C-alpha cells in the first residue's frame, strides 16, 4: 500500500491518516446521500469537502434543536398540563409515528 503509512503508534497524527481518511470519508459520503459535494479535482479535495459539509450539517441540526427547544418552552407555558395534549398515543398518531 502507501509508503507513507506509518508503522508507529496508532495515534491521530495527520500524516498517517491521510489516505485512510480519504477512503473512509468517501464511505461517509455514501451514508449521507443528501450531501452533494461538487466534483473536485482530487479525491482528497472531495473528502475534505465532505468533512466540511458534515460539520456544517451537524451545526445546523444542533442549532435547530436549540431553536425548537426555545419554541417548545414558550409553547409549554401556554398549555394546561392536565389536558390531553400530552396524551402520548394521540400525539404519536398525529405524528404518524
Amino acid at each position, binding site marked *: 500500500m502507501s509508503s507513507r503509512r506509518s508503522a508507529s503508534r496508532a495515534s491521530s497524527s495527520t500524516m498517517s491518516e491521510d489516505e485512510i481518511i480519504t477512503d473512509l470519508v468517501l464511505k461517509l459520503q455514501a451514508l449521507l446521500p443528501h450531501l452533494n459535494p461538487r466534483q473536485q479535482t482530487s479525491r482528497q479535495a472531495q473528502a475534505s469537502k465532505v468533512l466540511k459539509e*458534515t460539520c456544517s450539517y451537524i451545526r445546523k441540526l444542533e442549532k*435547530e434543536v436549540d431553536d*425548537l427547544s*426555545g419554541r417548545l*418552552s414558550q409553547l409549554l*407555558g*401556554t398549555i394546561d398540563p392536565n389536558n390531553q395534549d400530552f396524551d402520548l398515543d394521540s400525539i*404519536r398518531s398525529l405524528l404518524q*409515528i
Partner: protein
Amino acid sequence: MSATTEQLERNFTHRFLTSLRRINSPDSKTTTTHAAGLVIRRRSLRIKRAAYSSMARAAGSHRAWTRALLSRARSQRRRQQHDVHRRRQGREMGRAGKLRGLVPGGSRMEMGQLLEETAHYVQCLAVQVRVMQAVADHFSSSSSM
C-alpha cells in the same frame, strides 16, 4: 423510512414526550416567583437536555457517542452546569479536528470509528429535529394563543 429508523423515532418520541410532561408539571421548579423570560429560558435548557438524553437512550448504548453524551450529561449534572452540550476542544486536530469536536466522544476515537459514529449521530440528530418540529407544530396548533 427504514424499520430501524421508525423504531428509533417511536422510541425517541415516547421518551421525549414523557420528559416534556415531567418538565411541564405544576410542581416543577419553574414557579411564578421568577420572571417569565427566565422561566422560559431555563425550561428551554431542560427541554434541550431532555431531547439529547432521550435520543441517546433511544439510540442505544452500543454506540460510543451515546455513551459519551450520557456520561457528559451525568457529570454536568453533578457540577450543576446547564449546558450539557458544551463544545469540547479537539486535542488532535488533523483533517477531522472540527468533526471530533462535534461528535460526542469524538476526540477519543480512531478515524474509522469516528466516521461511523458521525454517520449514526447525524441520522439520529435528523430524527430528533423532525420529531421536535412535529411536537412543536402540534402544540402550537392546539394552543389557545
